[in-house]
């Protein structure tokens, strides 16, 4: 074995030298390019193409594996899984309705609170803040996105929870208690805590995307509006916001996608109960949090398969949201290169926060 290997190495290296040796008969370009150069180009193409193909296939692979894993639960419950509220491990009955509702309630309310805040922050950072504090403030806002969600969850239970239970919920109950959303026993965990924690997580994401969008608006447009006598706010409302509307919508979609998929922080603060009710003070659960909460093992194959079914629903929702965001951004994509780079950075910002 070993001598043959040595022979091979020697032959190959000699062949290499042989090719490189000066050879008057060959054309000039042929001489300067060794064998490595001749196989190099196709090799580079093949290697990088395989890597890219693998990276792209992962998406399909994930979808395929989840659908396969959910087959057992799909055969048992069918589409009725989507409209059933039960999650009963003892009687092996599972349904996703209350989890889907919980997911949408928390994410929609979080994005409703987060969007105006995020746009306001982006406006402050691009239009109002003095030049030298812009980058510092921007970095601070992005740091908020970088805090791991398990830490926000821990903070949510032990710091934010008691505040919500003792101050915020009694206050909301006494001022807005005539609405069914603000009734019931006060608790440090539950929908309200989950919504606020999610808001904290998505504000920096939406803010940094929106901020990149605002910087791409040509300053001629701004100056034109100001020169016509518009106040700064009128310029924002009349020029900046209309010019970036599809981008802002995409940013909102990205933030929404992040909120839907958030598992840890929500698992830690939402209370984890099945059921649909109006009060924001009560416990609830979401798709992602329910999946994460079952990590200690499920008792039956059907339960495991139901978890994969939940994951499939979550995947489908997030694919719809993300592709929607992509399509919103697409018309902008054709505009100049600088704008595309800004959007690339926006996607980077989306990838900041860990779950």
């Amino acid at each position, binding site marked *: 074995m070993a001598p043959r290997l040595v022979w091979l190495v020697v032959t190959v290296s000699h062949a290499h030298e042989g090719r490189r040796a000066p050879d008057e008969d060959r054309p000039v370009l042929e001489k300067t390019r060794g064998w490595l150069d001749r196989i190099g180009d196709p090799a580079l193409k093949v290697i990088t193409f395989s890597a890219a193909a693998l990276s792209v296939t992962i998406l399909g692979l994930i979808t395929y594996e989840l659908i396969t894993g959910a087959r057992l639960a799909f055969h048992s419950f069918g589409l009725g899984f989507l409209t059933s509220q039960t999650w009963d491990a003892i009687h092996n009955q599972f349904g996703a309705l209350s989890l889907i509702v919980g997911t949408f309630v928390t994410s929609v309310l979080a994005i409703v609170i987060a969007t105006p805040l995020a746009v306001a922050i982006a406006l402050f950072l691009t239009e109002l803040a003095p030049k030298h504090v812009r980058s510092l403030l921007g970095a601070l806002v992005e740091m908020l996105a970088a805090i791991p969600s*398990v830490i926000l969850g821990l903070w949510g239970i032990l710091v934010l929870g008691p505040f919500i239970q003792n101050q915020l919920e009694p206050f909301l109950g006494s001022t807005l208690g005539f609405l069914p959303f603000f009734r019931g026993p006060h608790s440090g965990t539950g929908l309200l805590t989950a919504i606020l924690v999610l808001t904290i997580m998505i504000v920096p994401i939406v803010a940094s995307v929106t901020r990149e969008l605002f910087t791409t608006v040509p300053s001629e447009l701004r100056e034109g509006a100001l020169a016509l006598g518009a106040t700064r706010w009128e310029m924002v409302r009349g020029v900046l916001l209309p010019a970036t509307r599809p981008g802002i919508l995409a940013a909102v979609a990205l933030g929404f996608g992040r909120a839907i998929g958030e598992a840890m922080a929500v698992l830690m603060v939402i209370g984890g109960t099945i059921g649909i009710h109006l009060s924001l003070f009560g416990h609830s659960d979401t798709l992602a949090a329910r999946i994460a909460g079952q990590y200690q093992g499920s008792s039956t194959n059907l339960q495991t398969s139901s978890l994969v079914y939940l994951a499939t629903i979550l995947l489908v929702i997030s694919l719809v949201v*993300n592709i929607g965001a992509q399509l919103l951004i697409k018309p902008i994509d054709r505009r100049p290169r600088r704008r595309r780079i800004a959007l*690339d950075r926006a*996607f980077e910002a989306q990838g900041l926060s860990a*779950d």
Partner: protein
Amino acid sequence: MSEPAFTLKATGRLRRRQLVNQAMGALALAAALLAVAVLAIVVISVARRGAGSLNLDFFTQSQAQGFNPKGGGVLFAIVGTFVLVGIASLIALPLGVLTAIYISELATPRLARIGRMALDITNGIPTIVIGIFVFTVLVAAHGQSAFAGSLALSIIMLPIIARSTEEVLLLVPPAQREASLALGVSRWRTTVQVVIPSAMGGILTGTTLAIARVAGETAPLLFLTSLGVASHADANPFHPLSSLTLVIFEYSEQASPDYQSKAWAAAFILMCFVLFTSLTAKLALARYRKKLEG
């Protein structure tokens, strides 16, 4: 110049427009201050509760056991985090860089667009779903291991590294590429010896950002390596290993205040690591971009 004898004072409609303008400015300022205040509150409460429980033992000892243990540390959770993130980077870095090279240097515009879109969509997949994916592929048959966790983390890192690399490859001045090709240097040599060295700084900072991101991941690890206990010395990637994030989560579920203070201490270590790494990487990336954009 002398002061004018009269002052211009807005009245009526103009006055109202100016007031609205000022109110909106004040609201924007308030929103920005609120975000910074929340960051400060989170960071300070983690630091205040965490720093108090930190001591040398916390870094050098393995986890203590029992209902309400005194002492002990998270050494093997830190080791586990390093193993998990290290293996994930080893998988994701080459794959991500090669993907980026294909998309930005070789692919047709149509293929490049498909590739970019697929990467962005992968970036948006909830990490718990990626965890379930690796669970059905690997863990359901072979049991938990740190390697399975690394695989999930590498899927999370891949689009981040590929997209940030692609972005810096776009920033490499076309003149460098053209000069090399005009000298008769082959395509692959141009890529390997001109384009990549020029983009290296950006690739490395992009990878650092991805590392900071996945070091804080918990959700995908729950199904893959949560059986790892930080109490015994183990760094074998084919065993389930604990991680800092898993330790924070497990301790936060305990009622005993001693566990809670350890959760804060572990959170403090993780937060310092993540914030420091991502901040340095961001600063380096900003400087690097400025250099390339000239």
